[in-house]
C-alpha cells in the first residue's frame, strides 16, 4: 500500500448495452473518477454506480476473488474485476462483458446458466456405485497426496474467463471449454467416482469436447486460479485417444 498522494484521474470506458431495451445499441460510455489508494475495479465500479450512474449493470458477490462472479474483459482480456488493482493499469481502462455467455446487460453476463448447462452435459458429480451410505461408519481412507491433487483441480471457480479467452469456444458454441475439460480431469482423478475412461469418452470424446481444443492455451494463461489447464487437457487428450483408438 504505497502512501503516495498523486491521485490519477481514471477514465473507465465501459461497454453499455441493454438487450432487453428495444432499440438499444452497444456503445462505449466513459466515466471519470479519481483513483484512490488500493482501488480495485470493484471499488471503482461501485463508486460509479453510487455516484455517477445507478443504471450501470455488473456483478460482484464475494469481492475477494473466490466466487467467480465478476469476470469481464479488462483491456481486452478476461479477468476478475474484483481483484484487478487499478494502479497496475493505465489511466484509460476499457471494460466489456465476457463474450460467449448470454448478455444480461452492460458488463453482466449469464455465465451461471452456461455453467449449469455444462455441468448437466458433462455430469460433473461423483458417480458412486451405490447411493446408500452408512454415515455412522468411519469414512473410506484416501491417499493424502491424491486428495490434494483432486483439490488442486477442484479449485475452479467457474468464472468463465477460460471460455471467454478460448478461440474454439468463440467460434463453436457447443464447445465445453477448459472449465468442462478440467472438471472431467478432476472426476477422473477422484477414486470415489466410479466412471471409467469409456464413460468419460462418451462425455468429451468429440470435437465439442477434448478434441475440439486447439491448444491455444489462452485459458491456461488467463485462469485467475492458475489451474494447470494445459497439462490437464493434454493428459485428458492422451487418455481419450487411447480410449478412442483401442476402445
Amino acid at each position, binding site marked *: *500500500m504505497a*502512501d503516495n498522494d498523486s491521485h490519477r484521474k481514471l477514465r473507465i470506458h465501459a461497454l453499455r448495452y*441493454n438487450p*432487453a*431495451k428495444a432499440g438499444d445499441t452497444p456503445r462505449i460510455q466513459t466515466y471519470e473518477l479519481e483513483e484512490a*489508494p*488500493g482501488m*480495485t475495479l470493484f471499488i471503482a465500479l461501485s463508486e460509479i*454506480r453510487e*455516484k455517477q450512474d*445507478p*443504471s*450501470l*449493470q455488473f*456483478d*460482484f*458477490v*464475494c*469481492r*475477494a*476473488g*473466490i*466466487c*467467480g*462472479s465478476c469476470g469481464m474483459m479488462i483491456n481486452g482480456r478476461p479477468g476478475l474485476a474484483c*481483484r484487478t*488493482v487499478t494502479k497496475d493499469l493505465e489511466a484509460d481502462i476499457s471494460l466489456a462483458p465476457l463474450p460467449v455467455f448470454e448478455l*444480461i*446487460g452492460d458488463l453482466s453476463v*449469464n455465465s*451461471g*446458466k452456461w*455453467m*449449469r448447462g455444462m455441468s*448437466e452435459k458433462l*455430469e*460433473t*458429480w*461423483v458417480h*458412486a456405485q451405490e447411493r446408500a*451410505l452408512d*454415515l*455412522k*461408519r*468411519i*469414512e*473410506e*481412507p*484416501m*491417499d*493424502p497426496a491424491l*486428495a*490434494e491433487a*483432486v*483439490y488442486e483441480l*477442484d479449485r475452479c*471457480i467457474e468464472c468463465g474467463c477460460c471460455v471467454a479467452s478460448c478461440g474454439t469456444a468463440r467460434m463453436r458454441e457447443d464447445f465445453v471449454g477448459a472449465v468442462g475439460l478440467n472438471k472431467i480431469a478432476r*472426476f477422473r482423478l*477422484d477414486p*470415489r467416482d466410479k466412471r471409467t475412461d469409456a464413460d468419460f469418452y462418451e462425455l468429451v470424446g468429440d470435437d465439442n469436447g477434448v478434441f475440439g481444443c486447439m491448444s491455444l492455451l489462452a485459458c491456461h494463461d488467463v485462469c485467475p486460479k492458475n489451474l494447470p489447464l494445459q497439462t490437464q487437457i493434454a493428459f485428458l487428450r492422451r487418455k481419450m485417444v487411447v480410449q478412442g483408438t483401442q476402445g
Partner: protein
Amino acid sequence: MKIVYTDVLVIGGGLAGLRLAIGAKRRGHDALILSLVPAKRSHSKAAQGGMQASLGNVIKGQGDTEDVHFEDTVRGSDWGADQEVVRMFVNTAPKAVRELAAWGVPWSRVRKGDRDVIMNGQKVTITERDEAHGLIAQRDFGGTKKWRTCYAADGTGHSMINTVADQAIADSIPVHERVEALSLIHDGSRCFGAVVRDLVTGEVSAYVATATAVCTGGAGRVYRNTTNAVICEGIGHALALETGVSALGNMEAVQFHPTGIFPAGILVTEGCRGDGGLLKDVDGHRFMPDYEPEKKELASRDVVSRRMEEHIKKGKGHKSRFGEHIWLDITQLGEKHIHTNLREVWDICHYFLGVDPVKEMIPVRPAQHYTMGGVRTDPSGQSPTLKGLFSAGEAACWDMHGFNRLGGNSVAETVVAGMIVGETVADYCDSLSNTPTVPLGLVREFVEREQAKLEAFTRGGGTEDASAIKGEMQDLMTAKVGIFRTGKDLDEAVDKLQKLLVRSRRIGLRSPQLGANPELVTAYRVQRMLKIALTVAYGAAVRTESRGAHFREDFPRRNDAEWLKRTLATWKGESDTLPTLAYEPLDVGRMELPPGWRGYGAKDYIDHPDTPGRQKAVEAIRAQHASDRFAMQAALMPYEHLLPPGLRGRNERIDERL
C-alpha cells in the same frame, strides 16, 4: 399473474439451501431453489478454514467426542445456545462430513508419521497414527479443546459448495438464478410461498409451495466493515420479519472476525492462527498471551476481537493513513505451508494488499463477520409462529450459536441443518393435513402489493437517495453498534436509524424503470436492511448485559439472573419504526451444561438463581453414569428424539468402534 407451484420452495442457494433441497427431493418432493446469484457463487464459498466435526482422526484430536464439541459450542455461545439443538448438531456433524466425503469433497487427509507443526509460536513434532492414515484430517481452530476442524486445504467452503451444488444438479433440482423474494405469502398463521422478482427482466410472480425455507445467509452488509459478500444484506431475515408473525431471534448477537484485512475487510482465515500465526502490535510484540494466557490467539473470536480493539485503544495499534490496525504474522509458518495450506490467504494478501505473507506481516482489524441471530425456529427448523415457514443456516436462529459462534461451526451448521431440516420439511410435506388449499385471492393480493410498492418507486416524487441512506446506515452500525457498545451510542444509533427508515420511505430514483435496474434494487432493499439494522441496534440497546459477542462497556458482566433469555423481534405494523421485542427464557433446569465460566475472557458473571441447583443435579447424574458417556448424556438431557430417524445413532471413531 404468473404462478409457479412446487412442494418445497427454498430461498437461497448456499450450502444450507442446497442441502435442504437435496434432502427434500430425495424424499420425493419437488424442490425449487431461488437464488440471487448462481448457487456456486453463494457466500458459503468464502468459508476458507473448515468445518467442525468430532472425528478425532488426528493425534491432536484424539479423545474428541460429541461431548467435547458440545461443551466447546455451548461455552462459545456464552450459554445463549439451545443446548438440545447443539446436541443435535454435534451428533450429526460427523455424519455430514462423511456424507460430503462420499459425495466428493476433497477433504485434506491424515498422513501417518511425524510432521512439524507450529504451536504457540514453537515448532513441535507430532506423530500421526498408522490407522489414521488417509482419514479426514483436522486442524486447530479458535475456541476448541481438540483439533476438530476438517478442511479441504484452504478452500473448504468452496469445495463443499461445489460438491453439494453438483449433487443438486445430479438430482435435477432447478435453481432459479438472479431472482429475489420480495415477501412471503401468508395468512397470519401459515406460509404459502413467496412473491418473487426476476432481477433480469423485472417480472414479478408468485411461487406457491407447501413448505417455504429461508436459507439466505447473513446480514453483514448492514455494516460498513464486513467480511460478508455484497449479497449478504439480510433480505431473508427481512422476509420473515415483515410477515409481522415470525420472529427474529438474538439479532443483537453479531460476530466480528479478528482478522479482516485492513482496510478492505476481506477475511483471512482463522486457520492462520490455528496453524500458528501470531498477533503483534506496533512494537512487534505478541500481545495476546498478556490478555489470554491460556488460549492466547486461539480464544474465541469475540474475545480475540475485543482484545485487539482494546490493545489498539491503548495506543498499541499500527497507524496507517486509513486508521489503526494490528499485525497478523504468519511468516514463521514457512513458504511451503503458506503456498499449500494457506494459498487463498496468500492470494488475498497478494492481490488486495500487495503484501507477501511469506515475508511480511498482514495488516488486520476485526470486521463484522457473522449474524448469530436469525429467523427463530424450533429444533425441527420450523417457525413456531408461522406454519410452513422453515429456516436453516446463518439465516436461522435455530439456535446453536447463542451469542457467539465458534470458527468452523457455521459451515458445519449449513449442511447439518440442511440435512435435518430437509428431512423435517419432507415430513411436513408428507403429512396430508399440510397440503395447502391455495388461497389464490391471497396470492394475488400479495403480488399486487409488491408490484404497487415497486411502481411507487418508479412513479417518482421521492427525493431521498437510496445509496446515500444505505451508506449512512452502514457507517452508523459500524461506529455505534460495533464490538464495544454503550447505552448512549446504541440509543443514538436507534434514533438515527429510525430517522433513516422514515427517510427511506421517500426514496426517489434517478433511473426510474422496472426492468433490470440496480438502483431500484438498492431502493427496496435498503428499506428492509434498515429494519434489520434496527432489530440489531434496538436489541443491543435493551440488553443491558454482556454476553458472547454482545459487549456492553456500561454492563460488562454477563447477567444470567436477568438476561438468560433469547430476544425475539417482530415487526408489527408497516408504519412502525421499531421492532417489537419479546423474550424467551432459557431453562437452566434442563441444561446439560449449566452456565459457568467459558474458560477464556472475563470470569465475571451474575449467576441465574437456578444454576447452583442444576449444577448439583448434573454432578449427581454425572457421578452415577461415570462409566458410560452415552447413558450419562441421555440422563442429563435427552435429545435424540428430536433428530430425524435416519440421522440418529452413534458415530464411529478410531478409538470408539461401533
